[in-house]
């Protein structure tokens, strides 16, 4: 299973993204292979979120290209990537505060009723959406959510995060991108999300997981993409490198050479 012999399912080459004078991405690459969990780590402001936003169409890169299954794609808005089966949980969660959980799960892809009520009066099929939403939340094992009709703004931070993850899990068919999905979660809920990630991998779904939690990363990741100063600094695996080494590369204390084998201290 050497990465080089397989073709990436999702690949970014030379992405550049600037915000006025701030450089978010400075010629950054990323490769995600079929069936793997790729962790993306890096300091605050290293460009992790910007990178995955470019992959999902939430931001449009100034330069560089993105390939899905070997074909160049250009995502202009989030719904473009969703349309081809890429689901993203953003760091900001992107839930509509005043709407209930079921409405949030189906936001932007609501189901309409069959017959004239749906086609002429455009009425929503709330019953089915509620039913499915309930099942999705239950499948995640987030038991503290009592009422699927509850407005999302009345939920705790962790519960909101669960809703965002449930939404992605419900619709993702090709790639899942999770930007710090466990940041606000308790131990039990974090474990549920990790279990979900493992389950997704068992189903053959490739996952990009951004996380600051090293033990978590080492637990579930197949490979670790280390982002530093808007660039991909290195890609390592939990088997070949230790947490200390990964943190060293993240902070620039350690440099990795071309072969990815030997590390030497910068200082």
């Amino acid at each position, binding site marked *: 299973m050497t990465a080089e012999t397989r073709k990436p399912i999702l690949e970014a080459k030379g992405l550049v993204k600037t915000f006025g004078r701030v450089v978010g991405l400075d010629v950054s690459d990323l490769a995600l292979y079929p069936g793997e969990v790729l962790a993306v780590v890096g300091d605050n402001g290293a460009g992790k979120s910007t990178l995955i936003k470019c992959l999902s169409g939430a931001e449009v890169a100034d330069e560089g290209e993105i390939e899905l299954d070997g074909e160049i794609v250009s995502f202009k808005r989030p719904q473009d990537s969703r349309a081809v089966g890429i689901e993203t949980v953003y760091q900001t969660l992107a839930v*509509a505060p005043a709407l209930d959980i079921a409405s*949030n799960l189906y936001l932007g892809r609501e189901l309409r009723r069959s017959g004239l009520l749906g086609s002429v009066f455009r009425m929503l099929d709330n019953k089915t959406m509620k039913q499915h939403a309930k099942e999705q939340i239950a499948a995640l094992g987030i038991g503290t959510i*009592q009422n699927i009709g509850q407005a999302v*703004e009345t939920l705790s931070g962790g519960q909101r995060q669960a809703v965002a993850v449930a939404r992605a899990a419900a619709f993702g068919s090709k790639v899942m991108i999770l930007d710090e999905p466990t940041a606000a979660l308790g131990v039990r809920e974090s474990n549920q999300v990790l279990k979900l990630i493992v389950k997704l991998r068992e189903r053959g779904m490739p996952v990009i997981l951004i996380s600051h939690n090293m033990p978590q990363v080492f637990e579930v990741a197949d490979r670790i993409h280390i982002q530093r100063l808007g660039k991909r600094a290195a890609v390592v695996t939990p088997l070949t490198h230790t947490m200390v080494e990964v943190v060293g590369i993240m902070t620039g204390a350690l440099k990795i050479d071309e072969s990815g084998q030997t590390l030497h201290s910068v200082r």
Partner: protein
Amino acid sequence: MTQTEPAVHDAAEFMDRRTFPARMQSLLHRYPWISPALVLLIAVFTLSFFNQYFATPNNLSLIAQQVAVVGSIAVGQTIIILTAGIDLSCGAIAVFASMVMAKTAFENHVPGWIAFILGLVVGTAAGGFNGYLITKVKLPPFIVTLGTFNIFTALTLLYATGRTVRDTEVDPFLLKLGSIFSIGTFHITVGVLVMLLMYAAVAFVLRYTAWGRHVYATGGDIEAARLAGIQVNRVLMSVYMVAGFIFAITAWVLIGRVNAASPNSGIDLNLDSITAVVIGGTSLFGGRGTVVGSLLGALIVGVFRNGLTLAGLDVYYQTLAVGLLIIFAVSVDQWIRRSKS
């Protein structure tokens, strides 16, 4: 997964132990029209106590007729405020559309219904112009509509050349909404009926269609809505155009109400519609509220003005009361919001 059960149970018990204000708060949060409904009930009850004529069918019919124009325009204002926007030009659009309707029919001898459609087109286009400046030029709604308020007012005066189209000159089709019909001892204008129909239609669309949901999502958090795959600019554009259309229908109600089309009418509509929406419990921060609330808000203002007049109070006290109501409504909104963040 035996852990799940007690967790739900604990949480449920915790819910039941909430204090009364906390429960009130979440109730109002869920149904923001409750507080205006209560205010309206109390107002009607109190005012009928002070004056025997107040609660008569004749007087209540009169209030309904007085409220029809503001009530109609508030429908459009509500959907705009739900997107965290505001429209200071709504009254100017309505008056502009009313002049187009009345003048093309009177001076250019266009059939009444065609003149009406022309007015609808002008109103929708005016709303679209606001929407364009907000979504494409990316200016804040407040500034845009402050500007277009002046533009539309000036265009109206230029077009009308300062002249009112009087009752005998207005096409009969355009006067239709002023005609009165009776339900029992109540005498209601067709305009009131049209207003109620608009409320029903917009309430339905907001509640039962994807578009309605997208309006709330866009108003609640525009970036989140965008990331969730909603075309927020398209939603905003459609909202301002639909509102413009509603303001043009209001023009029809307005002509029926004043029995003429005057370029100087409806000056107060711009702010009065915002008053109705805010008193009706819709949040100026967007994302929360109902059109039904705005109807209640318009009725509250109508009831206060009418009832306080009957009680022999000076008009300044009415204005004072409306001002206090606005402050009260916004305070309630803030109180609801605070707990939820």
